[in-house]
Structure formats: C-alpha cells, structure tokens
C-alpha cells in the first residue's frame, strides 16, 4: 500500500458537493440521507420523475431496482451527466445489467449501511475526474496527431517544389510562420491547399 502524504482534493471537496438522491423514500433513502448529513454534503431527495437535473449537481445517487428499469431519464448518458452511484436492490441479472449500462465506478447495495458510502463517493468522483481528464487528453492527442500529419504532407510538398531536404523544408515553413505571426499548422494547411489547387 502507498501511504498517502496528501489528502486528495475529492475528499476535501465532499462538503461542497451538491448531491441528488433519486430514490423512493424508504429505509435505504433515510440511511443514505443521514450519512450524507454526517458527511456534510448538500443533498435533495427526488422521486420518482426527474426530467431536468438541478443545475450544479455534482453527484447522483440513483435507485436501481426492478421498477426503475422502465424509467427514462433524458439527462442520462450526456457528456454533461454528473457521475452516478447506483443503489442496487434485488441484485439479480436484470438489475446488474442496468447498472452496467450506467457506466458507474462504484455501487451501494441495499440494505444500505452507513459504512461504504464515503468510499463509494470518493472512488466515483476521483474516477470520474480521471476519466474526464483522459477524454480531454485524447481530444488533444487526436488534434496533435492530425497536425503532425498535415505538417508532414506540407514538408513533402516543399521538399519536392524547392528541391531541399526535410530539415530545410521544415525550417522554411517555420520562418514563414514566424514572419506571418501564424502557427506552423496554418502555414502547412495553406501549402497543402495551394498544392491541391495547383495540381488539379
């Protein structure tokens, strides 16, 4: 085990959380609410329908039980959907399938006990943040990859038209970019476009 020397921000942030509990008002709901009060989270209980999620919702605790399988929540599965923790009653193949479709990182089992909720929230928030960062990193990586391909093609064009080697071609493009105060990608894009126009 790694001994932590800092407390992760997800744990420090717990008192700032706005939590929506989408759950029938029963013993499990009482247990969840009471534990969230102890943890110091802001929460509201909503049941059964929720067309629009309250703005600023950081986390949703969602009842997953046989009677919820047919419920449709339009805010689920959107890029802006906050992280979810399913509260699972009737742990059978149908409900487990429903949980898998929710892309959750942790679950709470019924009957709910106070122990386990803090860990579930921390794992969920931390994994959700990590997933978001990974998604953003992927987008940047894809952009970068397409830029590299573009510069590569422009370099080939300059090499052929000017009869220079690859480092010299790249240098020529970079000084053009500096002179025009543009990025090397946009210079490369212009070269590729101009070449397409000239070679019809």
């Amino acid at each position, binding site marked *: 085990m790694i001994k932590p020397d800092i407390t992760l921000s997800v744990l420090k942030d717990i008192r700032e959380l706005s939590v929506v509990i989408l759950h029938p008002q*029963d*013993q499990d709901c009482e247990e969840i609410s009471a534990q969230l009060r102890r943890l110091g989270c802001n929460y509201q209980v909503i049941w059964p329908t929720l067309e629009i999620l309250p703005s600023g919702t950081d986390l949703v605790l969602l009842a997953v*039980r*046989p*009677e919820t*399988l047919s419920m449709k929540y339009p805010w689920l599965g959107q890029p802006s959907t906050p992280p979810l923790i399913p509260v699972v*009653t*009737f*742990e*059978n*193949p*149908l409900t487990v399938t429903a949980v898998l479709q929710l892309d959750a990182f942790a679950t709470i089992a*019924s*009957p709910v006990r106070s122990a386990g909720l803090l860990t579930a929230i921390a794992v969920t928030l931390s994994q959700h943040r990590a997933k978001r960062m990974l998604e953003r990193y992927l987008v940047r990586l894809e952009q970068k990859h397409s830029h590299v391909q573009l510069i590569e093609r422009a370099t080939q064009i300059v090499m052929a038209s000017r009869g220079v080697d690859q480092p010299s071609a790249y240098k020529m493009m970079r000084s053009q970019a500096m002179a025009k105060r543009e990025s090397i990608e946009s210079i490369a894009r212009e070269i590729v476009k101009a070449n397409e126009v000239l070679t019809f």
Partner: protein
Amino acid sequence: MPISTTKPIKIGTLYSTTGVTALVERTQLQAIQFAIEEINAAGGVLGREFSLVSLDSASTPANYPGLAERLILEHGVRLIMGCYMSSTRKAVLPIAERHNTLLFYATPYEGFEYSRNVFYAGAAPNQNILPLASYMLSHYGTRVAMVGSDYVCPYESNRIMSELIGEHGGKKVQETYLPLEANLADFNTVAKQLKALNPDFIFSTVVGAGNAHLHRALSDVGLHSTNTPVASHMCNETDIASIGVHLAEGLITCASYFQSLGNAENQKVVAGYQARFGRHENTNVCWEAAYFQTHLIAKAIAISGSEDPTLLAQSLPGTYFDAPQGRVKIDEQNNHTYLLPRIGRCNSVGQFDVVASSSELVRADPFVVAHTAPLWTRAKHARIEGQEKRVGQ
C-alpha cells in the same frame, strides 16, 4: 421445573389476512398453526410449547418493517415466519439482520438472495421455473406469450423463460406486465392481443387476485387450455379455487408439492388439517413449505437445545424432515431447501395430476444465471432418471 425452561418458544408471523395476496398467505398462516398444534400435542420441544404471535401485514410492503420491529421489540420474538411477495421480504431482511432475528420464508421466489438471517423453504427458479419452461417448450411448442404482474419475480421468471426460448429457437410473441391491482378490463385488453397472436402457450406470472381476471378474460376471447394452455409456476390449488375450476382446468404448473400427492404422509397431514380447519380447505405448495419449515425449526431447536438465533442458524443447515412432498433438507451453504419438483396439470376438480417428476431431490441454486434444462422435463426423456445429484439422509 424452573420457570425459564417452561416459557413458550415464540414464533411471530407476518402474513396478510387481507389484501391482494391474502388467499394463499392465509393458508400459510394456518399451516403454521397446524404444525405448532402438532408439535405441542407431542409435548413441545425441550419440554416447552410453541406460541404464536400473528400480525396482519395486509399485502402492503410498507407495513412490513414496522410490523417486524413490533414483533421483535414489543413481543420479544426472535423467529419470524412470513412474507410473500419479494418486496415484503426485502423490507424485513435488514430488520432481521439488525436485531439478529431469523426470518423463515415459505414462498417460491426469483432467487439471487442470501442472508445468514433468512431461511428459504420455497423453490428457487431452478426448482420450478426452469423445469416448467423446459417442459412447456418441449411439449407444446416454442411461440410463447408472457403475461405477468408488475414486480420483480415475473421479470426474472421471464428472463429465464426468454433464454430457454432462445435455446429452443423459438419466439417470444408477447411480454406484458400489469399492475397488481389491474382489473378485468385490463386483462380483457391483453386477452384480445393474445388471441390475435395465437401462441403455443401462455406463460403467466400473474399473482393474487389478477389470476381470476386473467382466466376469465382468456375464456371470454375463446382461448382455452385445450388449444392454448396457460403455464404458471405462481398458481397453486388455492389460486385455482379463486379462479374457478371450470376456467383453470388444463393449467400447467411446476411445484414440489400438490395436495393430490398420494403418499401416506401427505394423506395423513391433509386429513388432519382438513379435520382441524374445514374439509373444503385446500393445501398448496406455499402451505406445505410453511408447514414443514415449522417442523424444521422445532427439529433444529431440539438439536441446538435453544431457540437462540445464532445457535439455530448453525443447527438448521443440513436439517431434514419427512414433509408431505417427501424428505426435504436445508442446504448447508445457501439456507435454501432441497425440493422435489413435479409438473402438474389442473384436472376437472381443481387438483393437479402429476405428468412428470424429478426422480431426486433438486438442490436450490439461487445464484445461477445460465440455466441448464433438466432431462426429466424433455418430451422424450420424461419420467426417466434426473440429472441432479442425490443428497444424503
């Protein structure tokens, strides 16, 4: 004799004597009363009598947690028998665990549960739905319509039926769920759809009062058991009496117990029960489970020398009893019960004729996802040696 050893052993019950599922639950309560009278007449257990504290849960899941706590806190009960629909059992389970109380559940259910505080005497799906589905698909055809009550057990039952239909290369032509309170008009609508779809058989997971509506509606549109039989593992002799024998004749079910079983033990118990509660009283699979579970409790108390729930939870697994269905035994690992499944067809007097039977006790497998159909339910293998392992004792 010191007073402490003559104190009665208290059994609390949570059965509905009113509401949508009261008919069958009332037979379970009477089965327990009857078993307790038998036990007391034979001198009780450890020289002590059994006494009963019964609360009416009125077929309402929300009543159960409060009533369970009342049994424990006001009446000092640590052994509770009862619950019928799974939602009611799920409501009592956390209370039982919190107060170290044992819950004895005597109704077939959809599986996927274990608690060290709950003992299950009713069938798990591999002991009733699986054999019934397999029997129907291999004897009647594979175009199946499903109609059920809107709660957890029908959904899981239909999942299993759907998988077996898939394995048989068949087709699910309808899967519909009605509220527990659905009326005759709701069932008429469904019956008209079923008539148009003309399935090979109808798989019903309707419970309680809806059964009478379903069969009335099917009859009104001209769907009869002779051409389109109804199969339901959730329909027993008591339900048949409420449906009306003329409407239910031909219904096919799977259960480990039928009132009609010809063995001497069943004949004796049914005769005694009817002498006590009235000669028109029907028995059924839930009745029998409640009856033998009471005797299993008595046996386990005798073994452990105490009704302490912790000690009982240790002595109950492996305990067996010669029940009206034959010898049953509590599983050593999952608190469920080894049972002997049979396929029955409802005859003209509202009793079931056994048309196929497992030759051996079948172990409850409450957590199985992918089921394998037992050989004895297949058309060409009916009535031959089953594939289940024989248990001891």
